[in-house]
């Protein structure tokens, strides 16, 4: 074994297989162009190739695979939402996640650790009871739990009644999970490329040609590409890209900041969030504590980290887990969130006939990745909007039929 390792280390031909094919020249024409090679873009490509036989597909990425908000999110998977449309959608996504490693034959490190949301007020308990009822009705494991159960689920949580906001109850979501976010994008990209999809990194879409209500081509920094259909999957830059096709969206972009400590021994199993003190905490399988969920108070495309957020996130995390006071911070970062007025995504048809939207992913994009791939691929292949994403169409804003998703973010509402 040591000799094998030595041979491997000294080998001139790196023996590891590439996960995906390196970029080649852009073709003149593709059946489908997908803008954005994050989890969503690669998931759509994967499903088009594997289940619909559409392989003349290019995924165009201005930077590198999974390097945008796929890399920046905090990898929370859950389906304990509040609206029926939302719960149904995310429930299917969690089901797909549970089988994703098998689907790819590639480990996405899915861990079903459960998720606990804390109530520090009577109003929160009422809303959790409502959420638990809706969730159970829709077949999602979600229940209201008392202080004793919380102490058993998370023994190192600060249950003191003398804290500023004592914990009164919780919403326990046994289906809650986490997975390796990079591996999700890599797995989809690998599977898509194996089936003939082309991944073009460092390829930025600069303009989109629309004639008579149809997209005919996209102009990139590497040349012009004709296409029969375009899907945009660029959460965080949705308004900027859609504008190139002449589409205006009901989105404002806010940075969402998170930070992570040095790795420690495993002591925290579930994901714990508190909408009241505005924080969520979980420990990754590497041992780092991820502390997240602070939105900046005004729209911005910059992904800088601020001292204000570090201060408020730290204060909130210490209220829940006082032992973190000795923890050393490794890094702090921000991702750009597409915030919609109703906290639901915008998926499906657009005012341009063969241009499809996968936008408005706010703070709920990662957990929706697998179901997004399935439904958006079905839409592109069949030109029919799948029932499960019909409520999320852009047109809902003109019809005053918003989906008010009050269970959208773990650390707000």
């Amino acid at each position: 074994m040591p000799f094998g390792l030595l041979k491997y280390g000294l080998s001139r031909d790196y023996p590891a297989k590439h996960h995906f094919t390196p970029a080649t020249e852009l073709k003149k024409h593709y059946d489908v162009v997908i803008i954005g090679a994050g989890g969503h873009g690669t998931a759509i490509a994967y499903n088009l190739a594997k289940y619909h036989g559409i392989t003349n597909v290019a995924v165009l990425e201005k930077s590198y695979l999974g390097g945008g908000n796929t890399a920046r999110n905090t990898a929370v998977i859950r389906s304990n939402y509040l609206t029926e449309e939302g719960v149904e959608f995310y429930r299917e996504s969690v089901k797909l996640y549970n089988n994703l490693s098998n689907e790819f034959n590639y480990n996405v490190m899915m861990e079903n650790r459960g998720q606990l949301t804390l109530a520090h007020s009577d109003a929160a308990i009422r809303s959790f009871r409502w959420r638990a009822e809706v969730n159970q009705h829709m077949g999602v494991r979600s229940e209201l739990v008392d202080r004793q159960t919380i102490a058993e689920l998370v023994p190192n949580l600060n249950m003191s009644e003398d804290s500023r906001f004592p914990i009164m109850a919780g919403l326990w979501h046994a289906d809650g999970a986490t997975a390796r976010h990079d591996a999700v994008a890599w797995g989809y990209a690998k599977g898509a490329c194996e089936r003939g999809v082309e991944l073009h990194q460092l390829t930025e879409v600069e303009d989109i040609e629309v004639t008579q209500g149809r997209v005919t081509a996209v102009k990139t920094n590497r040349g012009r590409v004709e296409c029969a259909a375009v899907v945009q999957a660029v959460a965080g830059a949705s308004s900027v890209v859609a504008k190139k096709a002449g589409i205006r969206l009901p989105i404002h972009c806010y940075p969402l900041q998170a930070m992570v400590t040095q790795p420690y021994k495993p002591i925290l199993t579930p994901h714990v969030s508190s909408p009241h003190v505005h924080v969520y905490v979980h420990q990754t399988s590497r041992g780092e504590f991820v502390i997240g969920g602070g939105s900046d108070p005004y729209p911005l495309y910059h992904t800088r980290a601020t001292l204000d957020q570090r201060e408020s996130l730290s204060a909130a995390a210490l209220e829940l887990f006082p032992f973190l006071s000795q923890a050393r911070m490794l890094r702090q970062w921000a991702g750009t969130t597409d915030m919609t007025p109703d906290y639901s995504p915008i998926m499906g048809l657009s005012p341009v006939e063969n241009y499809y939207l996968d936008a408005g992913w706010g703070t709920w994009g990662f957990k929706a990745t697998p179901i997004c791939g399935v439904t958006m691929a079905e839409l592109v292949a069949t030109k029919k909007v799948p029932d499960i994403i019909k409520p999320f169409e852009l047109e809902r804003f003109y019809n005053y039929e918003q989906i008010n998703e009050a269970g959208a973010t773990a650390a707000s509402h």
Partner: protein
Amino acid sequence: MKLLTCPLNGPRNISEFTYGGEYHPMPDPNKTDPRQWAEHVFFHDNEAGIVTEWWCHSASSFWFLAERNTITDQVIRTFEASELFNQRVDFAAESGDNS
């Protein structure tokens, strides 16, 4: 600490202010259909670049406008709303309509 200069109160910590949305001239209520209202209320330009937007100094409830670069997070200038609203706005419905 990031500062924002209020036209009334001078430079203050940005945490004293509330962001109030993009500045768009309101459409004429007498000539606007529900679709146009939806566009005005829900949709945004969400520009990556220089935008004009509403801000309020929460402590004094003073509303004003700011030009800000949403890529660099730099405030270019702040100014009183009277710079853009220099005429009286009449909200009254036209007589005879919907009566």
